[in-house]
């Protein structure tokens, strides 16, 4: 019995799996979760549960088989206890997903209340802010606002599952072309079990009329979240996309392994901003999200541009290198990052700029802030291929230490294969100046305000790349995350 026989009939698939797994489903009022563990049957179940076509199931299974032969990476500057991948549940959905709501009015009010608490502007607030939101709760996409407005402009913004149903050709054409399943351990895992995510398609010549936004939330216990985002910007199109992430406090670690693929064709521009505030664990390092994310943008067309901006304040572990493959001539890649680690948080993050086309340019601005016992590593690769004549890179990598128990580390990798390239790397490390602090205090500013002011100033180059609403949120997040870091 294979799942594709039951593609449209989720009830009987449930039944089938329930029989097969003695533990049955952990289903409560709000959500439906598969039992922990991973094998081909789980992959088949997920695919069937989502009513996927045969080719996608095959794609998942191939990824799963690859994953079995791969090892979790251990080269990062992170101390992680081995993760038991059989102890994680690979799918969890709010139950109402079975009868998928047709509009926001039909969404469980409790769910909307949760979003309200999170400050997700789903209702009128969204309209005011001009943001279209796709909210991913645990593993499925809950509702996408403004679809009509976007449709008028020809923009497709929907959940990944819907895209598979409604735009299979587009998905098939681009899925895995930027981050192939074999790319790395976590990308392979994601490819096998990804649950949902966002899909964006901007047709030729269209400037997306509003910021697109996704809000991710891990809610259920002992579940992993594996979302997959695919953004395609056709010739001369433009889109700005934001994602926000939160998770509740839990004592156990939760796994988040997402894949984001961006494709920019000729003269297209994609701006991708993230404010990540997954639960970081408590001050003793108990609990928190393990965030293993593969994000990559492919500047496929000439003169295309991809810009990553990230503010990473959450997660117990962050392993994340949003990258740009600069294939098109004169294409441009940018990476602006603020990563903050407090208490026992660890971050190993940075970027890769792969210059392939001639006259390609890249810019990296990385700001690492360590407080408490936090460990913060910047890891960046700048590769100038032989073909990339006149390529340029500028990297600025600044670290700030707050207190004496934390650490900052920089691992720049520079590979230059073309003599006409120009690569610049600047790095600084500073302790939050006792001098700066005293200067502020002496003017009457409280210590707490002084620290947030100094940190905010330190991050300014990155914050100003964020859309307005996000810049405010990012600043507030840093303040909250640094509470009690000094003194």
């Amino acid at each position: 019995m294979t799942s594709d026989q039951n593609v449209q009939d989720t009830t009987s698939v449930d039944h089938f799996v329930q029989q097969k797994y003695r533990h049955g489903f952990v289903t409560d009022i709000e959500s439906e979760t598969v039992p922990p563990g991973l094998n081909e049957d789980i992959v088949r179940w997920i695919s069937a549960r989502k009513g996927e076509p045969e080719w996608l199931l095959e794609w998942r299974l191939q990824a799963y088989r690859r994953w079995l032969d791969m090892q979790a990476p251990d080269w990062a500057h992170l101390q992680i206890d081995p993760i038991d991948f059989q102890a994680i549940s690979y799918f969890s959905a709010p139950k109402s997903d079975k009868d998928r709501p047709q509009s926001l009015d039909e969404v469980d009010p409790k769910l909307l209340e949760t979003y309200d608490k999170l400050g997700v502007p789903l209702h009128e607030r969204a309209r005011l802010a001009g943001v279209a939101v796709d909210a991913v709760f645990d593993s499925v996409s809950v509702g996408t606002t403004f679809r009509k407005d976007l449709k008028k402009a020809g923009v497709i913004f929907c959940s990944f599952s819907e895209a598979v149903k409604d735009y299979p050709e587009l998905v098939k054409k681009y899925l895995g072309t930027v981050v192939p399943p074999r790319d790395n351990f976590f990308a392979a895992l994601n490819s096998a079990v990804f649950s949902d995510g966002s899909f964006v398609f901007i047709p030729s010549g269209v400037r997306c009329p509003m910021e697109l936004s996704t809000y991710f939330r891990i809610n259920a216990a002992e579940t992993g979240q594996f979302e997959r985002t695919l953004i395609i910007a056709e010739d001369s199109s433009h889109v700005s996309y934001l994602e926000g992430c939160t998770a509740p406090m839990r004592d156990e670690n939760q796994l988040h392994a997402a894949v984001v693929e961006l494709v920019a064709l000729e003269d297209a521009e994609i701006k991708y901003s993230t404010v990540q505030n997954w639960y970081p664990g408590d001050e003793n390092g108990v609990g928190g999200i393990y965030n293993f994310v593969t994000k990559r943008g492919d500047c496929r067309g000439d003169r295309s541009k991809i810009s990553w901006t990230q503010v990473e304040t959450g997660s117990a572990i962050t392993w994340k290198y949003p990258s740009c493959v600069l294939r098109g001539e004169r294409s441009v890649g940018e990476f602006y990052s603020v990563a903050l680690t407090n208490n026992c948080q660890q971050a190993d993050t940075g970027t890769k700029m792969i210059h392939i086309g001639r006259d390609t340019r890249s810019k990296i601005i990385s700001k690492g802030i360590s407080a408490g016992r936090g460990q913060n590593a910047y890891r960046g690769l700048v590769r100038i291929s032989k073909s990339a004549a006149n390529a340029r890179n500028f990297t600025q990598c600044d670290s700030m230490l707050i207190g004496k128990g934390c650490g900052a580390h920089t691992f720049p990798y520079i590979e230059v294969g073309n003599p006409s390239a120009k690569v610049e790397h600047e790095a600084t490390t500073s302790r939050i100046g006792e001098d700066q602090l005293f200067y502020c205090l002496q003017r009457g500013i409280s210590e707490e305000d002084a620290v947030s002011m100094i940190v905010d100033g330190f991050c300014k180059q990155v914050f100003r790349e964020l859309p307005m609403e996000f810049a405010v949120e990012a600043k507030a997040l840093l303040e909250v995350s640094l509470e009690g870091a000094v003194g």
Partner: protein
Amino acid sequence: MLEIKNLHATVGGKPILKGLDLSIAAGEIHAIMGPNGAGKSTLGNVIAGRDGYEVTAGEVLYQGKNLLELEPEERACEGVFLAFQYPVEIPGVNNTYFLRAALNAQRKYRDQPELDSMQFLKLVREKLEILHISDDLLHRAVNEGFSGGEKKRNEIFQMAVLEPSLAILDETDSGLDIDALRLVAEGVNRLRSADRSMIVVTHYQRLLDYIIPDAVHVLSDGKIVASGDAQLALKLEDQGYSWLEDGGIEAVAG
């Protein structure tokens, strides 16, 4: 205004101030001179409450209050201002924003309403005009990329906006050419008032050509070893400090 009695202070366990006495009345300007390592900067830092400067004996009364009991930011809010010898840069923090945060923190402390940006801007423009400072200063990050002269002028500008009761100018003249020195001194003179006292710490007499002090003190080895009027500064300029060590103290003291 300020009454310092038998002040002893250590830095990193090392005694620097060893029984310093100083009394300043409201509206007075006192100059503190002395050789390197005498404890001139330490005095400013102790008054301002900097971490690492430990008072081991003595007292500091400011407007009748025990200053040493207060946190540094409370001292600032009470009207104690230190113009730094080396003003630090705070990259990315706008100078105007910083100063408004400082002023409003102080106003809040004194139960005065905070100023909104328009009110603040108006105040700032007035002060700039008085000090003949261009408003270019307002748009830059705090001291970032400022020349030595600009940094010192920024300190005086902050002082003008915050309107302290007691200002300590720690070697405000160091590193300035004569034109910059004159500008800074003019600024200070404009801020002289009957209810504001100042301590001017300097190595050189030349600053005192422009800022005429009510009293000059010589600080040596952690103590005031000589006090006098502006003439004392001239004598120091002429003869150096060594004559003080040869029992010359009585000659000018009192």
